[in-house]
């Protein structure tokens, strides 16, 4: 045979290569390869399939307790199903449940306070450490320096927390501002009862709302929507008094624009007319009070201060008096309420005058329930005697009291209170701060321990979905801590929260009333002085954004997706003002400005021109400007509470931030 030389080799090689190529093509590989490249670059996320089932339960995110169903695929919760119930927060429960930044284990601070550095620890270790501190504090006679701040929606864990503090020897339980605790102060003053105002809004037929943004997060969302539908059915009339044409004002039958912060004045202006019509109320000091109203809150005065025409005030008063079930509603704002106790008292007096108090479609007093007085040992009794409780949360923050241990129960006062910065300073000085929370929010950021709690989805009932975490119900955590403290454990004879029989809340009609004229005399002077401020010519009025409320919703990406472009877009928060206001400072749509008040400066924000806002007023959205609230909620916009008025109401101990005045730069 001929030797195989180079040419032959090339022929063989060529044949092989071409053959290989032919085989490659004919096998369909190029198509598959291309398909593989396409799929690899698409990198598609494919949800895992599974068997579908539904879990029925109750959403415990707010007192409405809406019935919900959770659609499960195998053990994954994928959707909250309701039949026209619930609210936007209910729909976001799945995102809350599965939030990647959820606290999964008890966390202990490892860096400096406020550095945000935490490391997971075991539950036993954390509880041990905490109870040791409690025991030490009590033995040192400092039991009165125990303090706690709680979220108004956590009714039951708050009861346990209150019991813990009392049994330990401290009266310092404070609630974030809400209608419950603001009206508590008013109710104590007016009726000498320990309860909150409970409005029967659904059955009222003439609702006079003083900047209570009923359809934007005030009260509980579902019951408000239900009431709204009932008003349409029964032809009830909603009259919204508000400085901004808020969502509620737009949906109301009548919107009464008024100058910022003058709701109290208007209420008493209406009282004037009611008194003139012969309406009275039994109670001590009524005569003096009526005289005060006649002297100071005359139609001329009131109209001048509030900007509401004299005829309108008289007409509204007449309609209110003639309605079958009139109801005056207090509580400025939506989720975040800011009203002075005096304002709530004034508005509640209107209900007394038309005899709506205690009737259907009117207002009753919901007594605060309690687990009863806990047994107090010697340390506790001695401590309670010397302790002076502040009147409210902001009063406590502004006071000289430096807590030895501070418990934050599912709350975020650093962000929501106008005294947030001061609270941070206090927390820096507090040796032990414990936050019970699902996410690391602005307040938990400065804590020493973060103990993970459950989202509403995990509390819907039996067979609720569970995450692979060590979260516990807030009530259980408080119980665990309490049972580890000597002298306090006796007050907690239950081994788990399920054993506790929580009392029902009682609704009663007040029997006695006490009217005081003094608080209102002062108010008129204050309001006039406010309106004449030259250095800070504009008023700053807050409003809330759907699904965000006073800040809670911002951690959820689907909530971020829902924010309107003229509220937050391209990483900037927008404030709204009337074109006339803008013209004075030479501003136009989109201009960047800073807002400056007596307390400080925030910025920059963009200007949106709209006539929904009165001239001389700047409307600012609440809920933004978190320094720490997961990567989705942090550093978005600014928090106006930092510059809002922090003057503390003497009766409720809470700051009234609705009276802020600013200048623009």
């Amino acid at each position: 045979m001929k030797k195989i030389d180079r040419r032959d080799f090339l022929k063989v090689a060529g044949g092989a290569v071409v053959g290989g190529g032919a085989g490659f093509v004919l096998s369909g590989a190029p198509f598959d390869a291309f398909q593989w490249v396409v799929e690899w670059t698409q990198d598609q996320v494919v949800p895992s399939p599974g068997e579908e089932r539904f879990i029925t339960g109750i959403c415990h995110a707010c007192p409405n307790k809406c019935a919900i169903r959770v659609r499960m695929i195998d053990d994954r919760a994928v959707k909250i199903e309701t039949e026209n119930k619930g609210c936007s927060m209910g729909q976001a429960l799945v995102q809350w449940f599965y939030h990647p930044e959820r606290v999964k284990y008890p966390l202990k601070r490892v860096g400096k306070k406020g550095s945000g550095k935490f490391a997971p620890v075991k539950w036993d270790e954390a509880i041990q450490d905490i109870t040791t501190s409690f025991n030490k504090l009590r033995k040192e006679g400092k039991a009165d320096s125990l303090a706690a701040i709680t979220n108004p929606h956590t009714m039951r864990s708050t009861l346990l927390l209150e019991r813990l503090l009392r049994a330990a020897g401290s009266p310092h339980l404070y609630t974030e501002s809400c209608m419950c605790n603001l009206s508590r102060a008013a109710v104590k003053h007016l009726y000498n009862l320990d309860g909150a105002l409970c409005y029967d809004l659904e059955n009222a037929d003439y609702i006079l709302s003083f900047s209570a943004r009923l359809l934007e997060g005030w009260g509980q969302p579902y019951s408000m929507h239900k009431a709204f539908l009932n008003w349409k059915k029964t032809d009830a009339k909603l009259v919204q008094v508000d400085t901004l044409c808020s969502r509620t004002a737009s949906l109301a039958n009548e919107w009464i624009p008024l100058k910022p912060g003058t709701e109290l004045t208007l209420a008493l202006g209406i009282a004037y007319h009611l008194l003139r019509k012969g309406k009275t109320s039994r109670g001590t000091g009524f005569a003096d009070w009526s005289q005060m109203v006649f002297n100071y809150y005359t139609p001329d005065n009131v109209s001048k201060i509030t900007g509401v025409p004299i005829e309108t005030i008289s007409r509204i008063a007449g309609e209110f008096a003639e309605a079958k079930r009139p109801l005056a509603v207090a509580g400025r704002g939506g989720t975040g309420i800011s009203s002075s106790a005096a304002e709530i008292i004034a508005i509640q007096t209107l209900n007394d005058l038309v005899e709506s108090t205690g009737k259907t479609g009117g207002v009753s007093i919901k007594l605060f329930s309690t687990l009863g007085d806990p047994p107090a040992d010697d340390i506790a009794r001695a401590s309670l005697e010397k302790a002076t409780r502040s009147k409210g949360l902001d009063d406590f923050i502004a006071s000289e009291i430096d807590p030895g241990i501070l418990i934050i129960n599912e709350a975020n006062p650093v962000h929501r209170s106008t005294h947030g910065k001061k609270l941070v300073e206090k927390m820096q000085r507090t040796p032990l701060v414990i936050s019970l929370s699902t996410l690391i929010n602005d307040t938990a950021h400065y804590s020493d321990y973060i103990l993970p709690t459950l989202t509403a989805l995990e509390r819907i009932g039996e067979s609720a979905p569970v995450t692979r975490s060590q979260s516990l119900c807030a009530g259980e955590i408080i119980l665990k801590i309490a049972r580890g403290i000597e002298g306090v454990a006796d007050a907690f004879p239950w081994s788990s929260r399920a054993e506790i029989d929580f009392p029902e809340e009682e609704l009663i009609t007040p029997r006695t009333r006490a009217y005081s004229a003094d608080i209102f005399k002062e108010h008129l002077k204050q309001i006039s002085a406010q309106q004449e401020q030259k250095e800070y010519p504009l008023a700053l009025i807050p409003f809330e954004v759907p699904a965000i409320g006073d800040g809670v919703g911002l951690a959820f990406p689907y909530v971020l997706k829902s924010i309107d472009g003229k509220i937050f877009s391209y990483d900037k928060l927008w404030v709204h003002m009337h074109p006339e206001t803008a013209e004075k400072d030479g501003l136009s749509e989109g201009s960047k400005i800073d807002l400056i008040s007596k307390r400080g400066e925030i910025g920059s924000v963009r200007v949106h021109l709209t006539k929904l806002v009165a001239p001389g007023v700047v409307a600012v959205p609440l809920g933004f400007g978190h320094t720490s609230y997961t990567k989705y909620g942090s550093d978005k916009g600014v928090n106006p509470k930092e510059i809002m008025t922090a003057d503390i109401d003497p009766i409720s101990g809470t700051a009234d931030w609705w009276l802020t005045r600013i200048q623009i730069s």
Partner: protein
Amino acid sequence: MKRSLLLIFLPFILFAFLSFFVFQKGCDYAMSNQAEKPIPFSHKTHLTQGYGISGCEDCHGYDENGRFKGIPTVGQCRACHDKPIFKGYKDSDVPWESYARQPDLVYFSHIAVTKNNKEARCSSCHGDKENAVDGRKIKGKMLMGVCMDCHTALKISNKCAVCHD
């Protein structure tokens, strides 16, 4: 001349076959077209020897909401006979992988195709499994056109939304 042709042709054929085989296997692997069948199973035996299995659905059933359950679990097998070959498997395990897979963007509903009285039978798409004695693939990749042809013949809508989401 003949020698030259042979020199080119023989390697050509050889490598064509080789590369065809290699690439086909490789593609099957890369595109996950294979399916592991760790426990040998004969459909024919189970269907023809009076085991009381009347049709495909007895083992390949549906959930209450109409979702197709697919390949049965070991627990379903154990319900009739516990064999040593099942040792080490949990009741909920499905050790057999399926050749029939769909991209995520297809919402294929078995129950809609088999229970709407329109003559489709399992074998129409899955081949003659009744007489299969092992787990080999019978019918290969089925592209969209096959579904559409059947729909056209049976006068069922071929609008995109019928199958896609």
